[in-house]
């Protein structure tokens, strides 16, 4: 079953855009539930994103590219 990870809502302004500052896992790697897979940032506030389940990750967005809050950023199969 495919599990989609979305960019968290972090800012008061829902339209504020953010970035995936750092990917800690690369497409094709196996990740464990709870593992920190990315550090994301909106308005200079940063947050760790954890994998919710075990599986193989596909990263859907580039590092440092603009992303909307709520946008799909990764998939774990």
């Amino acid at each position, binding site marked *: 079953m495919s599990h989609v990870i979305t960019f968290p809502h972090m800012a008061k302004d829902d339209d504020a855009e953010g970035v995936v500052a750092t990917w800690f896992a690369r497409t094709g790697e196996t990740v464990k539930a709870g593992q920190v897979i990315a550090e994301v*940032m909106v308005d*200079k506030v940063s947050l760790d994103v954890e994998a919710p389940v075990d599986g193989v990750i596909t990263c859907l967005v580039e590092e*440092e590219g603009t992303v909307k809050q709520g946008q799909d950023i990764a998939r774990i199969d």
Partner: protein
Amino acid sequence: MISDDTRVQFYKDMVRIRTYEAALQRDYHADKTPQWDIGAGLIPGEMHLAAGQEPVAVGLCANLEQDDAITGPHRPHHLALAKGVDMKAMTAEIFGRVTGLCHGKGGHMHLFDPANHFSCSGIIAQGMPVAVGQAFAFNRKGTDNVAVAVAGEGAANQGAFHEALNLAAMWKLPVIFIIEDNDWAISVARDTATPIKDGSLRAAAYGMPSARIEGNDVEAIYEACKIAVDRARAGGGPTMLEIHTVRLWGHFEGDAQAYRGDELQEATERDPIPAYEKRLRAAGLLDDEAVAAIQAEAEAEVEAAIAFAKESPEPKPSDAYLHVFA
């Protein structure tokens, strides 16, 4: 009694500073997107802006002459502007251009203007002994000039503060110590770092007069500074003033300020400039037209300074090797 003209001038000076800080904030962030990178853009590095602290600079500097000295902290722009440092040269320095005060060598925390006897340092409290030295020189030269050291409430817990106050009092020097208490040392609240509520009490330990000024009101600050400056000029020695002000923005630009919680919203309600505007309007000294004109004049000056900076050439790379020694 502060004249009406002076009161309006206070307002103009504070608006000028706020407009400057807001424009720098805009330009500082503008080219650091989408991935915020502190080293990127036309204004790289750290940026510490003084929005909310304008009354301290304006109230203090209204008492100072060109040949009086100020040593400022890492958050220096309000003090530099109020002291008379040229806005264009200062801005060019912040943009790292060769036309800057320090030819691009110093940047925003290291602004040196000897003509106005203005300097600042990025090391907390270390400007205080220097101001003591400047006061020493004024004394020896027989002028009635004074030196002022400005630092934050966090600096009052640093060794140099205590040594500087002791020396100044021992040698009865014409130096004024201004502590800007903006409640925060980066993320550390004053109450968790300083056990006494009124830091001006410390001056008594060094045998010098002092006061704590509440309210962040430019006129009260002006009056308190006047007493201290007059005392120093007359040979009466040093004074310490602790001025409660407000840090409206982050410690540095890029500071998310999560540690401030609800206090951040409450702080914005203590913005001294709208409060002062309201008082002057009630006194019939300002109206919509005057306020708009003052704002427009400030914006014009600030944008011209920024344009000057942006159009100025960068230093030559080999300039990096100059000025190690005279």
